[in-house]
């Protein structure tokens, strides 16, 4: 499986294709940007007053976005087994 790294976050690898394990339900999103504020990986952006997932490339699966969404517009699940982030230094 493909392994990716990031200059911003050394010591972490992202493995394979985790798929869209975080999604935004646009019908519920009110564009409050709470998800943007808490995401250290800059996964979200606001476009036309709605949040959308920009990339999950540096996501560490903490689910902070899911917790701070008052409107339950963030859909959070785990990536498929063996994919997504990993580290030796946690």
């Amino acid at each position, binding site marked *: 499986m493909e392994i990716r790294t990031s200059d*911003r*976050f*050394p*010591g*972490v690898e992202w*493995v394979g294709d985790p798929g869209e394990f975080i999604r935004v339900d646009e019908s519920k999103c009110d564009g409050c940007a*709470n998800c*943007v*504020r*808490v*995401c*250290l990986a*800059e996964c979200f952006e606001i476009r036309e007053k709605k949040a959308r997932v920009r990339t999950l490339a540096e996501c*560490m*699966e*903490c*689910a*902070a976005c*899911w*917790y*701070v969404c008052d409107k339950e517009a963030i859909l*959070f*699940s*785990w*990536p*498929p*087994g*063996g994919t*997504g*982030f*990993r*580290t*030796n*230094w*946690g």
Partner: protein
Amino acid sequence: MVDYDVVVVGSGFGGPVAARKCAEAGLDTLLLERSEVPGEKVVSGLVIPFYGFTFGPDFIREGNPPLERPICKVVNRFVRDGEIYATDATLRVPKPLALGYAAYCKPFCTWLADKAVEAGAELRTSTTAVEPILEKGAVRGVITDKGEEIRCQVLIDAGGTQNRLALQAGLRRKYLPESLELYMIWDFEMAKEDVDETFGLSMEFFHAFPEEGIGAPLGYGSTLYIFTYRESIHPGLGQFLVTRGEIPNAAKLLPRYFENFQEKVTRWKRDIAPKVRLRAVTWDVCPIYAGLIPETRNMPVFGDGILVIGDAAGFEASAFGDGVPSAWFSAELAAEVAVEAVRKGDSSRSALHQYERRVKEHPYITWIITDWRRWDLRKILVSRSEADLRRMIRDHWGIGAFRYRYSGRPLAKAVREALRRDPRAPLKWMEMFSRYYRNWEENRFDPLSESGRYTRPLAGKTHLQPDI
């Protein structure tokens, strides 16, 4: 028809303990883990408090888990204008005793998973439990990301803070952001001699009022700390996802706090920075008050066919670092109840109800889910008094922590209970402290399996040191 007596979801700190205990009792036990190697998705600045070891599972106390450094002293530094204006290092014990043990999650969780496998549990890694199998409100197993249905009598949810399965089973709701902390960790390589000389067997906190800019407002996140490992140090800090009623811009704030710390604080600039090299940056969300605040504290920890342990149950990783001990304690209690349920062939709600009763009687778990004094630091934000801050820290992270009305209460109760069960327990504790210290000095721990890439019991195969 069931495939397993017990399925444990999550091979972090709690899951393998539950799986081992079930397997030891002869139950057909499966341990599922979504990462390829146990522990490689577990992020935590980790000093496991001593009471997890003394009152926790026998096999950990009697084993030789991979520990990074015994922590004998908590050094509280108080910062104003970048300088340390006071230090409280009253919380200390002489070696070989220790207040806690620093560890990296990956080797430690792999060690735990190895122990579950040695006892006969089957470990399946790279497998995500996507949803529970529900029949008339009862949990009957899990469906994996490969679409496989695995049926069991008892499901133990050790899935961590996000507790997906218990949520999907309708048992619990997601934690409120007011009770959760987003914390960020920087791992630095540092020569062992330098860690020994700069820190010794101590860890440090850096307390300051918010204007110092090196941490969240008091009581709204972990104070900047430096955990010390064998050949590395592990600074971290955190902020609540709701701070004083608002969702903070944590993505900007957390890195900025640490930048300020590195730029301003002399202790870092002079004593530490010249000797370290950044190796990793990670973060995670952890529950600090999920088991304490009224909205979520009384959520069930069991249901028809399901038991919930550790962070998933709100037995949280509090500001006192109780996450791992409470995961161990609850894992053992859940396993006991699961074994009884399987033997009786009854895993209904009423049979599993025992689990709730037992966790609520546990001296440490009770403390974790009832001790409101943890909110106290927030008062200092109002009083703005340095003396109050120092007194409060002394009562929590200084010698006051041993006083009866603080953490002394669960300690005294746990000691009494341990002595009642086994009058020779203190001898075992002393033996453990000595052996752990010797292990650390000699850098000799149990060898670990090769990256956990096995599905069947190891039965005496050669282990390899993982690449960590």
